[in-house]
């Protein structure tokens, strides 16, 4: 009887630990530590976190235009007139969009595809946001499409497919490939060295 009472008393916390353990980077042990920390800092962390999560759960949605994640139907980037400079950067995932935004260099708008083409996994253009991209290029005043997809076989296959679809309508560019900032040649793979050498420039 006593043991059942004990189980009941920690059931909610166990559920929370179980859910937290499903988050990226967390396992059962680290989830338990995080939950314990939240409980100890109830007023400072747990309650505000629960409130914010509730709000985000109700309001988070994909931007109808670009696929970015926000709380409005049209995200801030798409809504801003300052970002309408005719440049459209195509990325694979929202995480890539956030990475580009962190750099603060790109001042145009984005388009999130939501993945890459994969014939073996039955992921075709309709499963991605490629038709929407073609529609945007036709409707918006786009002058350049920057294909910022991952430098993987799937990423580059998708880039070539999009280039085929948009060929001739706008200027198409891709990100440069080569030695990363802080990179040492000795540690680079032969493909990167080859790409960097091909794209060498005058100094």
């Amino acid at each position, binding site marked *: 009887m006593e043991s059942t009472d004990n189980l009941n008393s920690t059931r909610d916390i166990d559920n929370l630990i179980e859910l937290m353990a499903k988050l*990226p*980077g967390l396992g059962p042990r680290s989830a338990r530590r995080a939950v314990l920390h939240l409980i100890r800092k109830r007023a400072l962390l747990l309650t505000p976190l629960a409130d914010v999560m509730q709000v985000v759960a109700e309001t988070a949605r994909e931007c109808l235009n670009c696929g970015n994640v926000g709380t409005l139907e049209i995200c801030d980037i798409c809504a801003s007139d300052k970002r309408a400079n005719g440049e459209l950067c195509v990325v694979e995932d929202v995480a890539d969009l956030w990475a580009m935004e962190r750099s603060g260099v790109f001042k145009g708008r984005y388009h999130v595809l939501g993945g890459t083409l994969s*014939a*073996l996994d039955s992921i*075709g253009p309709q499963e991605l946001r490629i038709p929407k991209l073609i529609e945007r290029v036709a409707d918006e005043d786009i002058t350049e499409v920057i294909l910022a997809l991952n*430098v*993987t*076989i799937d990423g*580059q*296959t998708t880039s*070539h497919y999009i280039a*085929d679809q948009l060929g001739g309508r706008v200027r198409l560019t891709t990100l440069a490939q080569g030695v990363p900032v802080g990179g040492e040649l000795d540690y680079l*793979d*032969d*493909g*990167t060295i*080859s*790409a960097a050498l091909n794209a060498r420039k005058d100094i």
Partner: protein
Amino acid sequence: MLRKKLKELLQAMQINATGRTGSPIRPTLPCAGPLVVENAGMEWRDQGILLKKIRHGETATIIEVFCEHHGRHAGIVRGGASRKIAPVLQPGAQLDLVWRARLEDHLGSYLVEPIRSRAAAAMSGRLALAGLNAVTGILAFCLPEREAHGGLYARTEALLDLLGQNEVWPLAYLKWELALLEEMGFGLDLSKCAVTGQSEGLVFVSPRTGRAVSAKGAGEWADRMLDLPPCLLGLGPAPDSEVLLALKTTGHFMHTKLATVLAAKPLPQVRARFVEVFATDI
């Protein structure tokens, strides 16, 4: 007496001191010449071409590899999603593999070391990229699991090493496709006419049997026959237009035999994409 019998039994089963079957793996350098299978049990070392990868959890990747001595073989790579390993695991990459599992029919895990990356060559152009996707996609689609195809492996390796050489690659791909059909049991017989038995004047291929047919032998059925361009017979300079025609012929058998009979599902779109890119480039 009992001990002697047990010793004989262990010798017959090839169980060594470590409890594993066969001889233990000897450490060898990954690039020190052709690798051979050193153990036929639950631990082996081989070379392979990466066909496909699937993310498994946060850090691991399940890969499918076309191995020289073990055929199409899957396994998990622990840490395969890491920054260090993920760039190595690109389709077409030549890998040095050590596979381990508790039981032979388990998925098992791979230790991988890169031998040769083909990603840079593949990304050099549309045709190379479409070609690499076609080769890896078709192999992942049609090869039976864990069945060695040494001859096809050697041809595939040679074909992938030609990636980026667009002048010769489509013809090499055509020859590889013929070899693939042959290996899978649907080889074309282009040696003589199926009707007249003559070995000259062959211009058609029967869509049903895959045998060559001469113009005379085809008669009124000529319009139902597939083209047999000279490049399929290994004759002539093989211009691109002829190779494209030949790909249409082999494509018929890829769809009707390889995909329908062997796998009972449609051929992946990667081949059609390659042919489309090639046709556009001509």
